[in-house]
């Protein structure tokens, strides 16, 4: 219900684009075509020239390559690279064929640039209208120097956000849109579509949802395991970390900081190092099996199948995740635990509750209430937890040779295998989108309804 609140404009201003169209003078209207003209005519020459230069640069780019990129986008190119015999040099030469990847990339980039340009255009129109209104009313029109100065004060967010936003759009949003587009093409090693490919609509989604095919059945099994993994990984860590924090924080526990140090020590080692160490220790001839053999608990030649039996492997990754994650949980929850009002405990003790009851009736509900956002973030993080699976088991063991995923593969590691190893870029992109949808549906609703989102302003 909170999702569809009526939009309220918190920042009313008389200088909008529609007002400029309706009430602007001829110079304002003209500056919709020749950007910056209005500003130049109203004492803001420097600002106007910058606007004009932006427009000229954009148009130059569009004429030079932009329109070509856009025109190629629907077909994604069709000219194959060919060998041509060069008589003069007596060698084969390769003609420049079309490269669909680059066509798609440049096309998406051009569209993004055009959207950006439209946004700038809106800004300039508003700016021209504002300059016109102020100038006609005889009010003070900001000089260029004053405009620059405002960047340090009322417009400081522009100054501070722009660099970060440039990076985000260039290195996160653009690639993401590009990958999403890929899901609707046949860019894949299958059928040799690595250089030239076409739009195929929703075919990839259909193939993935078709549970009779290998791809489809793999998808469902990987999806189920991903959810199971995320659930166990999140809650085992949470509960275990909390119990540990409670036990260490107990009044009667001696050397609290020593115990904490022991657990936090493993936090200080980079996780990829400790994961690689764990992997080698759990190999058939690794340290753990050697230790067990020396102790005589298992036969001299036998080994526990940590990563070779599907069920063992699944349990192993979850257990190791406890090892990796609990210190972090311990660190984070210790502070929150100390904030639980002490009188709650006293009241419970007076009523004769034992430790287990206190934990389930007071500690756990309180913690769940306070740390819901943290739990959602952890759950999301675990669904996308690439490192632990890739470094520990690599998705092994592979039980079904025909499928492309092993039994501990998560959606993300499967995505990695499909794109990097197999070069099925389109299927990889589809999996990425589906992962996103699954997470979005769950997380967005919970976030929106969580207390800390609603009370965001109420700090």
């Amino acid at each position, binding site marked *: 219900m909170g999702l569809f609140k009526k939009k309220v404009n918190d920042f009313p201003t008389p200088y909008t684009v529609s007002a400029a169209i309706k009430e602007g003078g001829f110079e304002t209207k003209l500056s919709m075509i020749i950007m910056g003209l209005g500003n130049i005519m109203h004492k803001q020459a420097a600002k106007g020239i910058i606007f004009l230069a932006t427009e000229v640069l954009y148009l130059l780019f569009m004429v030079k390559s932009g329109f070509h990129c856009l025109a190629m986008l629907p077909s994604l190119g069709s000219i194959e690279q060919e060998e041509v015999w060069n008589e003069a040099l007596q060698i084969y030469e390769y003609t420049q064929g079309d490269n669909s990847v*680059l066509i798609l*990339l440049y096309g998406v980039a051009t569209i993004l640039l055009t959207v950006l340009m439209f946004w700038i255009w809106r800004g300039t129109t508003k700016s021209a209208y504002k300059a016109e209104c102020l100038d006609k009313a005889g009010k003070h029109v900001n000089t260029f120097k004053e405009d620059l100065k405002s960047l*340090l*004060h*009322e417009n*400081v*967010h522009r100054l*501070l*956000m722009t*660099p*970060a*936003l440039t*990076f*985000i759009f260039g*290195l*996160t*949003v*653009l*690639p*993401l849109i*590009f*990958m999403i587009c890929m899901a609707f093409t046949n860019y894949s090693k299958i059928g040799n579509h690595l250089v030239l490919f076409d739009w195929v609509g929703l075919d990839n989604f259909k193939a993935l949802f078709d549970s009779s095919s290998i791809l489809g059945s793999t998808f469902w099994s990987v999806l189920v395991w991903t959810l199971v993994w995320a659930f166990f990984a999140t809650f085992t860590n949470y509960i275990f970390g909390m119990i*540990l924090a409670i*036990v260490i924080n107990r009044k*009667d*526990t001696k050397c609290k900081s020593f115990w904490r140090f022991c*657990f*936090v*020590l*493993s936090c*200080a*080692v*980079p*996780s*990829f*190092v400790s994961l*690689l*160490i764990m*992997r080698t*220790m759990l*190999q058939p*001839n690794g*340290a753990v099996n050697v230790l067990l053999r020396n102790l005589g608990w298992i036969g001299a030649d036998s080994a526990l199948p940590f990563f070779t039996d599907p069920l063992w492997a699944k349990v192993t990754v979850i257990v190791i995740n406890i*090892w990796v994650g609990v*210190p972090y949980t311990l660190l*984070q929850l210790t502070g*929150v635990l100390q904030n639980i009002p002490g009188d709650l405990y006293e009241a419970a003790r007076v009523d004769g509750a034992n430790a287990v009851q206190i934990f389930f009736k007071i500690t756990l509900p309180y913690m769940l209430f*306070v*740390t819901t956002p*943290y739990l959602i973030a952890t759950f999301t993080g675990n669904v*996308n937890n*690439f*490192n632990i699976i890739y470094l520990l088991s690599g998705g092994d063991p592979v039980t079904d040779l025909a499928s492309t995923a092993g039994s501990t593969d998560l959606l993300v590691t499967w*995505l990695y295998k499909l794109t990097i190893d197999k070069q099925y870029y389109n299927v*990889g992109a589809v999996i990425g989108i589906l*992962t996103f949808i699954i997470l*979005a549906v769950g*997380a967005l609703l919970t*976030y929106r309804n969580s207390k*800390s989102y609603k009370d965001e302003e109420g700090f």
Partner: protein
Amino acid sequence: MAAPKQRSVKRTKMINNTIVHVVLAILAVIWVFPIAWVVLTSFRAEKGSYVSTFLPQGYTLANYVKLFTDTTILNFPKMFGNTLFIAICSCILSTFYVLAVSYCLSRLRFKFRKPYMNMAMVLGLFPGFMSMVAVYFILKALGLSEGGLIRLALILCYSGGAGLGFQIAKGFFDTIPLAIDEAALIDGCTRWQIFQKITLPLSKPIIVYTVLTAFIGPWVDFIFAKVICRANADYYTVAIGLWRMLEKEYIDNWYTCFAAGAVLISIPIAILFMFLQRYYVDGMSSGAVKG
């Protein structure tokens, strides 16, 4: 009547305490064991990854020496240099981005604020490296995928999404009383001055936390580094180097060196971490967990 009961209460308490301490000791051993083992392995004299004894037969420093002198196959010193350079640059960039964005979102009210926060949340739900292949193509199109520019490419990668990780720092800025800002505004400070002279000096824990996480990033990531470096071994980072040492063709000769390398890069990070643990926890609990 009262005395025996008191004694039995005392006894149960003592038994409980003993059990708790024994369990804690066992758990502590489990947690420290792998770390102890890798430190032992880094001093192990006998080569190879498969050993029949748990404790090393002989101790030596040769593994550390080899790591820094044998540069023919895996050039560890160079990787170390690469990673240090990339880490410092991307740390500066990302810290600036995170702090600037968090300050704006926490202190200023502008039109783009809510949409930006929603956008960050949505982007955070995509698998992080789903766009990795595309990032590679973009960097290639910009001509950054060959030679020394690979370092720049990696710096861009690591700091690219930094502006999206503002939640913790924003949560911290939210706790600084608004009254301070208002007082400064009345005294004629500009917003920029407030950011620079008031907010930043008050936020030492969160700055430390941001610097720390940004600095550690390049040391522990190897997916991006691997995809972007491809076969350019000259620009490998430490993480790829260590990972390669465990590949089939190297593991027999390099296994103990891997342990040595792991110890070496863990030590500075561990020291930083221990030293800054308080800040780390402060940052986490004030930012991430908000009731």
